[in-house]
């Protein structure tokens, strides 16, 4: 069973999710087998369908289906779905009800007390409409929580605490919307200083870019798939799949036979290699526009001397490596991606719900790369130096482990005979300022200048990185395992609480007055002490538990109900 029966809900424009605390840690709850529920409602004759099934039938029943209701919250707008006329909050209530019912089925616990997240820019009317939706769904809304605050909260529980006061950017790029928020965090209190965004930018736009690329390729074969609904449906699916694969691979071979027909009625097959570089070239303007919005938000936040210290990534589209690269180029900040970006907001909401209910909250344990791993390459700036010194990261700091990342580099000369692969660890742009991990030689097959060489880093939890180098189009490949000095993973998050600390925190929630003060004092002493002092502090804590057990036994014995 969970620590509490309170839940956190991310009521999103495109997707929603619900989570709760299990053993003090936030866990997303699958609804009908999936933790992410499309925020789509279909009002069929006699029944209301929410989520995947509604999404699946949307094109068949557009007149009865409502999506993106969040954009209308707080407005006087009325939806007509079939024979029904509904206010936006009534539609949202259906989504909340479906999340609650689904979570009850999965957990076996009744869903009543919840924290619901809303965009930081929601005004009073939009917030009241969200509260009303919760009420209509039969939920007791403990609090509305700003989405960036929620994400910041969950990241704080997954990363080593920063300074007492810091500026955090929450970069949220989802399926259809982009939001950036600048938060000031002072001793755990979060204030949203500025927000900016684009309500119509997200992963679907990147899929469209790839679809266009495929269409261009097919047109070379005198085919026009845009006239063929079936071919376009297949292309959209392939585009999404390709986009996802290019987040970890540098090139993807796309083959789809019998996709459509040419202008003479002959079958046309799609057979094309898409490189990450090509995708990045095409989506770069879209991502650059998000960076401009980030700059605007920073400016609006009027940081007066302070700077953004951390950037937390939220939303599935932040898995695209170029997002992180652009943020890294623009802001000198620590970038975090430890939390599943699709679930970060909901997980933060359940943390907040747990804290409001007095449940003990544990740190989230995720093994991450403590430093970026990369290799020595030659860049333009190196021509002015005695020897090359440019560090090219392949696997970035804070990447969740185990992980595999691939990058492509290019040869310097015609028929270059060899490549010296020198692996470094660190964050500095120069290898000389980072830590050398090891090196090996890789003989190259004859090839013209600027021929690609692929480098894959596979980093495991034991601190071993397997570096694989290959020449595309040949069978020339080599893999070498290197041990990373600091065991690589830095366990991000400080020490986990032991059984005594957990028991004490559980007990604190049920105590009041002097007993609570006494336990707080004992626990503080225990946590701060070391060596013999810690042993003594532990004994005093155990004695306190024993006394509490005695008191409870005594109460039971005096309880007339016990006879």
């Amino acid at each position, binding site marked *: 069973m*969970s620590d509490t029966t309170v839940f956190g809900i991310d009521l999103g424009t495109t997707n929603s999710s619900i989570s709760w605390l299990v053993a003090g*840690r936030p*866990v997303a709850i*699958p609804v009908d087998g999936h933790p992410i529920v499309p925020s789509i409602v279909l009002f069929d004759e006699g029944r209301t369908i929410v989520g*995947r*099934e*509604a999404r699946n039938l949307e094109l068949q029943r557009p007149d009865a289906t409502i999506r993106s209701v969040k954009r209308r919250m707080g407005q006087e707008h009325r939806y007509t779905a079939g024979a029904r006329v509904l206010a936006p909050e009534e539609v949202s209530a259906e989504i909340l009800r479906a999340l609650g019912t689904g979570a009850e089925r*999965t957990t076996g616990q009744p869903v009543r007390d919840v924290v619901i997240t809303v965009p930081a820019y929601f005004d009073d009317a939009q917030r009241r409409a969200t509260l009303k939706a919760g009420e209509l769904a039969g939920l007791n809304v403990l609090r509305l929580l700003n989405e960036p605050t929620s994400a910041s909260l969950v990241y704080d529980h997954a990363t080593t605490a920063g300074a007492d006061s810091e500026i955090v950017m929450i970069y949220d790029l989802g399926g259809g919307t982009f939001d950036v928020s600048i938060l000031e965090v002072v001793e755990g209190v979060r204030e949203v200083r500025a927000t900016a965004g684009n309500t119509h930018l997200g992963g679907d736009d990147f899929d469209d870019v790839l679809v266009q690329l495929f269409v261009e390729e097919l047109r070379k074969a005198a085919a026009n798939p845009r006239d063929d609904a079936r071919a376009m449906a297949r292309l959209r699916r392939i585009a999404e799949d390709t986009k996802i694969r290019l987040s970890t691979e540098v090139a993807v071979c796309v083959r789809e036979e*019998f996709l459509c027909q040419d202008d003479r009625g002959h079958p046309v097959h799609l057979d094309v290699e898409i490189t990450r570089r090509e995708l990045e070239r095409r989506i770069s303007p879209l991502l650059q526009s998000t960076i401009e919005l980030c700059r605007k938000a920073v400016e609006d936040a009027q940081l007066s001397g302070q700077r953004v210290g951390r950037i937390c990534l939220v939303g599935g589209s932040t898995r695209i490596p170029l997002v992180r690269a652009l943020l890294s180029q623009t802001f000198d900040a620590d970038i975090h991606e430890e939390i599943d970006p699709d679930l970060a907001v909901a997980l933060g909401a359940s943390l907040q719900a747990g804290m409001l209910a007095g449940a003990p909250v544990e740190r989230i344990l995720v093994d991450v790369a403590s430093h970026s791993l990369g290799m020595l390459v030659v860049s333009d700036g190196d021509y002015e130096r005695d020897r090359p010194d440019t560090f090219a990261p392949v696997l970035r700091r804070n990447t969740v482990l185990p992980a595999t990342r691939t990058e492509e580099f290019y040869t310097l000369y015609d028929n270059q005979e060899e490549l010296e692969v020198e692996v470094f660890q660190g964050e500095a742009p120069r290898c000389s300022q980072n830590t050398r991990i090891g090196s090996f030689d890789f003989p190259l097959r004859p090839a013209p200048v600027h021929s690609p060489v692929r480098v894959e880093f596979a980093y495991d939890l034991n601190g071993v990185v397997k570096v694989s180098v290959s020449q595309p189009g040949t069978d020339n490949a080599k893999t070498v395992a290197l041990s990373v000095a600091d065991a690589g993973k830095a366990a991000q998050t400080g020490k986990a609480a032991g059984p005594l600390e957990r028991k004490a925190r559980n007990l604190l929630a049920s105590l009041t007055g002097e007993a609570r003060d006494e336990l707080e004092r004992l626990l503080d002493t225990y946590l701060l002490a070391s060596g013999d002092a810690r042993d003594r502090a532990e004994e005093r804590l155990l004695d306190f538990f024993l006394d509490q057990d005695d008191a409870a036994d005594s109460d039971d014995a005096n309880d007339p109900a016990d006879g």
Partner: protein
Amino acid sequence: MSWLTRLFSRKVSSQSSGAADPDLPPVWAAELLDAVQKASRSQARAIARIEDLESKLEGGFADLRAAISVARPAPGTADPGRLEAVLDALDILDQARRTLSAAGHMQVEQGLAGVAERMDAFLAAEGLARRPAASEPLDGKLFRVVGTIERPDLPNGAPAQVVRAAVSMGERVIREGEVLVNRR
């Protein structure tokens, strides 16, 4: 524990001065107190650990319950993820047959139909059922509508073409199918 401490609280210093005071605890009391304290603390430590393990176990059960509702192969059946490439190949085979049929290459189409049947039989033996046709009314749990086409012979909204077959394992949907519906 405090009751025991209080009981023996005046023990040692008074005893060292001379004759035993009958109101004071006996000499062995300090040793007894120490032993009882150690035993009680060990017990309290063990209880805290057991409670912690119980909590983790309950958390594990919750995770397990959640995982059970997500896809998992039944005992003795195939891992559907492993067969994804076969399922994709069968979808393309379906499309190839449609193309050949439309072009009048009926014999080749029939030959490929035989190949498809063999592959379907293999999947069935692995516990998977392909559903290459969508029935009316359309089951939204099994098929996703991914586009519309115009088919004057069909009612508005009726499934007109399957883009990708749905796949199920018993009652569980392994992969949603994709379908085009008629839009007039």
